[in-house]
């Protein structure tokens, strides 16, 4: 579950070596608080991301986006205080897994691998993976044109585990996947696509729609490259009471219309989402 991409592998090993004894020690004093403990101490620690538009981003020094407005609603709903910290993606899942934060309120795509160390809430959006290309690049018109082209993705992103799906799609047409370039975060991947270092970038349809709306002269949205997938919020594995509390919160926001309105505002459409979802890959 190591998701510390910005590090070279040698550093990664060092991180693992240094963190390992600390992680083994987590049975002791500090662990993700369960619901009773959260109520008793009076606050919930929430971690969000800072550069994942439109889910969460920072505008004029203030956190905004879909998840940050959901947190505003959570502040009204929850009988305890919400303490939020903003981290770059590489620290997010590590922070939840070590118990530093109770919940990651960011778009964590539900994958089978992640369910081994995390428990997910109800999905918060529909996030099928699409590809985006340069508008001027006429060599890509459909999936089969992606044969052998260089693709950019965020390292540690859920799409990496779903690459076999695109591989299978290409193989059906007699093609194969080109070079995969991994970036610490998506803004860098988009920039490199614009600079022609890669031919297409894969991300969720929500993120890519936001991108092409903002820069229509440069980027163009392609077709889906995976089956359906859902992002959700994540708590530490086994913290089911907190997950159930958050699910009740999500259900309430669906019922009172707040969540569909926020989806419409940030994603351009409101989704019909399952209450629970078990990822197959």
């Amino acid at each position: 579950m190591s998701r510390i991409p910005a590090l070279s592998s040698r550093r990664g090993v060092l991180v693992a070596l240094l963190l390992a004894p600390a992680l083994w020690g987590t049975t002791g004093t500090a662990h993700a608080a369960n619901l009773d403990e959260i109520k008793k101490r009076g606050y919930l620690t929430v971690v969000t991301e800072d550069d994942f538009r439109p889910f969460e981003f920072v505008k004029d020094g203030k956190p905004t986006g879909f998840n940050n407005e959901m947190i505003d609603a959570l502040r009204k709903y929850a009988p305890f205080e919400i303490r939020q910290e903003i981290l770059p993606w590489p620290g997010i899942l590590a922070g939840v897994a070590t118990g530093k934060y109770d919940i990651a309120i960011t778009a964590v795509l539900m994958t089978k691998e992640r369910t081994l160390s995390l428990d997910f809430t109800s999905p918060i959006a529909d996030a099928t993976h699409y590809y985006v290309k340069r508008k001027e690049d006429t060599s890509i018109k459909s999936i089969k044109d992606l044969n052998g082209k260089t693709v950019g993705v965020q390292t540690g992103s859920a799409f990496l585990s779903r690459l076999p799906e695109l591989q299978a799609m290409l193989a059906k047409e007699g093609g194969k996947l080109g070079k995969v370039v991994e970036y610490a975060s998506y803004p860098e991947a988009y920039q490199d696509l614009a600079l022609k270092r890669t031919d297409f970038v894969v991300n969720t349809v929500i993120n890519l729609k936001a991108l092409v709306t903002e820069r229509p002269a440069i980027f163009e949205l392609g077709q889906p490259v995976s089956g359906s997938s859902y992002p959700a919020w994540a708590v530490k594995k086994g913290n089911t009471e907190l997950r159930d509390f958050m699910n009740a919160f999500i259900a309430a926001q669906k019922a009172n219309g707040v969540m569909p309105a926020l989806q419409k505002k940030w994603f351009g459409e409101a989704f019909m989402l399952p209450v629970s979802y078990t990822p197959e890959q």
Partner: protein
Amino acid sequence: MSTADVLTIFSGALTTLLLSIAGIALGLPLGLGLALVRWARVPLLNQMVAVYVSLLRATPLITLVLLIFFALPTAGISVGPVQAGLIALVLNTAAFNCEVWRAALLDLPKDQIEAAQSVGMGQTLRFRRIVLPQVWRTALPGLINEMSQLVKLTPVLAVVGVVDITRAAVRIGAQTYEPLPPFLVALAIYIPIVYALVSVQRWVERRTLMREAAA
């Protein structure tokens, strides 16, 4: 990029500056202390400092800050991003400063100490009047070098959520999908900060030269 964005980068610059200044202010004397322990060959402590310096010089700052931020809470100590960042910076820079100070101390001719002893100077007076004024001058270029490295190491602290110049620029790029303008602004801020450090070094060197000429 709007004016508000530029202001965001400047508030990041304030974080970078404050963290750098605090890191330097704490790391400099700590490094000197460690170097003196080694120079004076204090039994046991000497070996411990040697191990500390080797360990810290071998640890990437990013690893150290992740360790402090995520591992300390498991020991029941809670630290915020800025505290974790500052602790990591100080621990790191002290190890490097220690070696710069130690090199300067080793460079100090023994006969100077002996001469001071022969006129009956005590240990503290010897250090204040004879050792420090000379060692300080020899160590200065190395220390300033380490300080300018420290300023440029601060973006590493973003990994635990410290918003410095670079992270502020990344955030703006993520919001506007145009990362180049904020990066250029960021670069334009780093340059004068490091230049200011180098100017201090030149000024101190020139002043000591003039003093020597006058003496």
